[in-house]
């Protein structure tokens, strides 16, 4: 596409943007229509996710025919179900293994915030404490249509991205891996190391 499309009446500097907008549209359309989700069932919502894949709701109408078991080949992660402390290191590792561009859909109340099990000692209050989430679908469990609606919101978000600004083509915005949480006496996020040490010092000072 070497020729610039000429649109009469537009100033010269805007002509370039028109080209980019069209390119964005094609680029995003391609990505939207061939998203590959990762088969990643955690709990109850995964059963509704399977119902969504099955004949009545048929996820493949959205170009998501292939559910990949390997995170390397997937670009959409459905966190469908309760995220427990024991499981979250694995989820973060899986997220890190996914190639850019990657999107995360928190399916159901549990993945969004811990849901009805929030108060539990082994439940993470929302996967967004560890990995960035693009769309939240509340509901316990959300019906297949509600999950499809969430998928469409992801599509909307993708359509708004621009090839000019997306981080995965830019050298200065290399995506850092999310630090993997550690299972200590309780779940520990390495991101909080400094805060934790400071608070521990203060707590120790209070006691001693």
């Amino acid at each position, binding site marked *: 596409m070497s020729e610039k499309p000429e649109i009469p009446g537009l100033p010269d500097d805007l002509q370039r943007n028109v080209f980019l907008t069209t390119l964005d549209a094609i680029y995003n359309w391609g990505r939207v229509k061939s998203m590959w989700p990762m*088969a*990643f*069932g*955690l*709990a*109850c919502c*995964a*059963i*509704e996710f*399977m*119902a969504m*894949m*099955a*004949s*009545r709701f048929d996820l493949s109408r959205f170009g998501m025919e292939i559910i990949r*078991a390997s995170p390397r080949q997937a670009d959409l992660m459905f966190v469908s*179900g*309760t995220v*427990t*402390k*024991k*499981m979250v290191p*694995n989820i973060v590792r*899986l997220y890190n293994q996914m190639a850019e561009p990657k999107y995360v859909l928190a399916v159901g109340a549990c993945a969004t915030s*811990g849901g*009805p*099990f*929030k*108060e*539990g*000692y*082994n*439940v*993470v*209050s929302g996967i967004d*404490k560890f990995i960035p989430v693009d769309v939240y679908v509340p509901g*316990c*469990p959300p*019906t297949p249509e509600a999950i499809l609606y969430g998928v469409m919101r992801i599509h909307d978000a993708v359509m708004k991205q621009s090839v000019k600004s997306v981080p995965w083509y830019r050298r200065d915005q290399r995506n850092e891996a999310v630090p993997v949480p*550690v*299972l*200590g*006496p*309780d*779940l*520990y*996020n*390495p991101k*909080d*190391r400094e805060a*934790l*040490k400071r*608070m*521990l010092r203060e*707590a*120790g000072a209070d*006691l001693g």
Partner: protein
Amino acid sequence: MTDTMMQMTGLPFSDVVPGAVTEVTKNGIVVAADKLLPLAMHLRDREGYDYLSMVTSVDWPQYFEVVYYLYRVGAWHSAAAAASQEPLVLKVRLPDKARPELPSVCSIWPGADLQEREVYDMMGIRFTDHPNLRRILLWEGFQGWPLRKDFKEPYYEEDAKPFKSRHPDGKHAWAEDRVPWKDNVTYPVGWDPDLWTQPEVQYRKIMQVDGGGNGHSSEFKTERVLVNMGPQHPSTHGVFRMVIAVDGENVVGLEPEIGYLHRCHEKIGERNTYIMNIPFTDRLDYIASMSNNFGYVLAVEKLAGIQVPERAEYIRVIMAELTRIISHFIAVGFLFNDLGAYFTPALYGLRERELILDLFEAAAGSRMMCNYMRFGGVFADLPEGWVERAKDLVWNRLPRVMEDFEKLLAGNEIFETRCRGLGVLTAEEAIAYSMAGPMLRASGVPYDLRKARPYSIYDRFDFDICTRPEGDVWARFRVRMDEIYQSIRILKQALDGLPAGPIMPPGKKQYQLRVPAGEAYGAVEGPKGELGFYIVSDGKPNPYRYHVRAPTFINLTSLEKMCIGHKIADSVVILGAIDIVLGEVDR
């Protein structure tokens, strides 16, 4: 038998194991910890209590109490045993709350293995001589024993719901804001993340197998390696993990590693009021929520002495059997998925499930989490036209679908050759490992709670217990298929006989149930086996102790036994035939 002994000495079994029984209570006999093993040996060998159904524990203020539920399964249909189908309940009291310890009964009933580990994990009670006593639902290194009454979670607000902060002033704060770490975590004072090293898990049982180094088979030199499968694996039916020791392709040791979906069901359940637990039980075995509701309301009704109207009983049975059909469809479909029939049989199963879910949605309001049963009845009467829809499904559609299933799956030679002789459990082994449901019946033990201890109105229906003598994966598949036919049979009778009348006992709907102090165990034959709810009440609006006897969790005990000697690819199929649901395994 026990009655005569009681007359002689006052306490049962005092002539065979003197001093074993210290007290007889309404809810079981209290056994001295040091005499537990001899008594257990006697009960198993002389009294026919060959099946250890449940092990759990209660944290009383003065002592820990470990509770054992024993059944006679091997010979339940013989006249003598049939007369006493009520479980024998043993209780061991451990007054030393700082170091609670008692002998493990694994050597007598191998089915105690995982359950004792769970008791250890949740309450910190040590079982001496347990072959592999370490944390099971939580991870090695976790601080605290969650089900002890003095354990407080980070988000702890009050001992019992409803919380006072919600009304009338709405001073509720976002849970994260109430805790010092701004998250659902808490650390012991002085814990330094930099110095922390995770305790290494010793896969003791299977590492011993590994001890010899390189193994030799007759033709190839093979090496023994540990393969870790899961928790993220498409064939583990959720977040289940197996650590498999393989010699070449052959499985020589296996250990299930669970807890990746441990949602603190029991701890939350002890804080909930009785009625609040009903929707939580939906989320146990999330494929068979109606059946979970059923078991729970039965237990509470037993405790509170509530009568259920006739129509409600029928509706419950109809719902429970529809649930069984769904569950078996999914189990069968995904068993094929594990075998490599990529998604087709599962799709067929899911398709019929949708139609049954439509019925659930029409009656209860939700597809999966039905929350339909209430103490004394059901949430609402069946809507108009529901019975006709259900009849249409049961008489016309399901038999036709089953025909397709038979043609598509049962006659498939590849499937048969893959599954015959795989993962064999003999009848004795199945009983010893406390297997339940289709797993037990596929080993030729005709034990079905609906016949052995009929609950609700199951004694009115005409149906057969489906068994197979083979005890392999194929038999498990076949038993599930046959049970669908039996469920259709029950459904036909129940839909035809559905009487008119009320669906709840008379009186205003109550959201606060008064339950007298005491304990009760209510169990149903769920699609996966005996699903039991053990409830201890102290008269407060919330249960003092709430424990779920999860059939698939206990069925996992025998996974290693079934897999050893087979190829690693077969272990996936054997696991698929257990039909685990992680919501129930981990709770």
